């Protein structure tokens, strides 16, 4: 039996990858973040239509993103997930394509580790598997029914392709290789979740619809 090829990731800084997203984010986009992407997204500033899913249920950012996309079909919903989180809720990929929301974009930042708990290898990473054959998330997404699948080994490729990813009719998924930082702290909640939920609901009600205008820079 021949071992599957090991997916090699060029990696790069998660924060740089998120900065590229921030530069392209429209004013009416919802950006839902969880775990380490939430930590680094918050470090780049805040927006009323950010939903920082901390605390979360394990891996459920994709599920919540699906619900938001169905409830707000005229607004782009961008979910920033990690590979560890996605592995905890893989079925959600099938649920997403079953419902088929055109306005949902799932970004999966793959570092092969559970970084928030000390960067232990995930069972999907080459380091976490006896055979050393990292799972192929892009192939998995295609098999789950995604038609718009992008695979970027590192942040440079993501920077070059991000605009195309965001402009593609969804449901869309992009797999982006980033480098794990075992020394980085885990994400912290930016405040009581219930109060943030209320503010988020109000922001959805009051923020203008799709304008195409980029979000003005805001300080961290």
């Amino acid at each position, binding site marked *: 039996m021949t071992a599957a090829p090991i997916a090699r990731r060029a990696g790069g800084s998660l924060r740089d990858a998120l900065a590229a997203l921030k530069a392209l984010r429209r004013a009416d986009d919802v950006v839902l973040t969880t775990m380490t992407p939430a930590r680094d997204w918050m470090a780049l500033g805040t927006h009323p239509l950010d939903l920082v899913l901390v605390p979360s249920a394990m891996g459920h950012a994709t599920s919540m993103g699906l619900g938001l996309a169905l409830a707000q079909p005229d607004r782009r919903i961008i979910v920033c997930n990690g590979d560890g989180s996605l592995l905890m809720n893989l079925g959600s990929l099938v649920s997403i394509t079953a419902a088929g929301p055109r306005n949902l974009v799932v970004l999966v930042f793959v570092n092969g580790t559970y970084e928030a708990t000390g960067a232990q290898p995930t069972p999907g990473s080459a380091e976490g598997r006896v055979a050393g054959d990292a799972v192929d998330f892009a192939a998995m997404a295609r098999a789950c029914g995604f038609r718009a699948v992008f695979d970027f080994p590192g942040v440079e490729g993501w920077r070059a392709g991000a605009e195309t990813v965001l402009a593609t009719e969804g449901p869309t998924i992009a797999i982006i290789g980033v480098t794990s930082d075992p020394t980085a702290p885990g994400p912290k909640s930016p405040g009581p979740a219930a109060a943030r939920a209320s503010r988020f*609901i109000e922001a959805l009600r009051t923020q203008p619809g799709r304008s195409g205008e980029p979000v003005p820079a805001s300080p961290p």
Partner: protein
Amino acid sequence: MFDGERVAELFASWGVTHVVTVPDSTIGRWETAIVAAGLHLVRVCREGEAWGVAGGLHLGGARPLVMIQCTGLFESGDALRNVVHDWQLPLFAVIGYRSYLNQDTLPGDTCLVFTEPVLDAWRIDYRLITRTEQVGAMTEHYRACRAAGRAGALLIAEGKA
């Protein structure tokens, strides 16, 4: 106990927009009628997902309902805890209570042991529905939970056609 048309009519009268579900042999038979009534049926792969999807729907301004079996409630723990208690989203669920009306298929089914204690442990305000005559109580409970802004559930006895 209930047919799909009756349930769909009930959900529609409550203003439910989306039913997020994993079927069992009772509630699954309601799907066709729910869709025919104009409600959106969202099929998920496992019950824990249903709570996250319903949470997103609620935040987005829809009025979701989670429809699962009690075995799926057991699977739902962390997801339910997060959306109902951390985020305090007032989600409502209709939960099939397996083997409640008879245990011919699964003698000694432990669903009867754990379902209600689990709902109590998760602090879900629920009503047990064992007869079709309780339809008024179902609506009353749904509306009371809505008015109070709290999560709730109906536990629907299963085991008879």
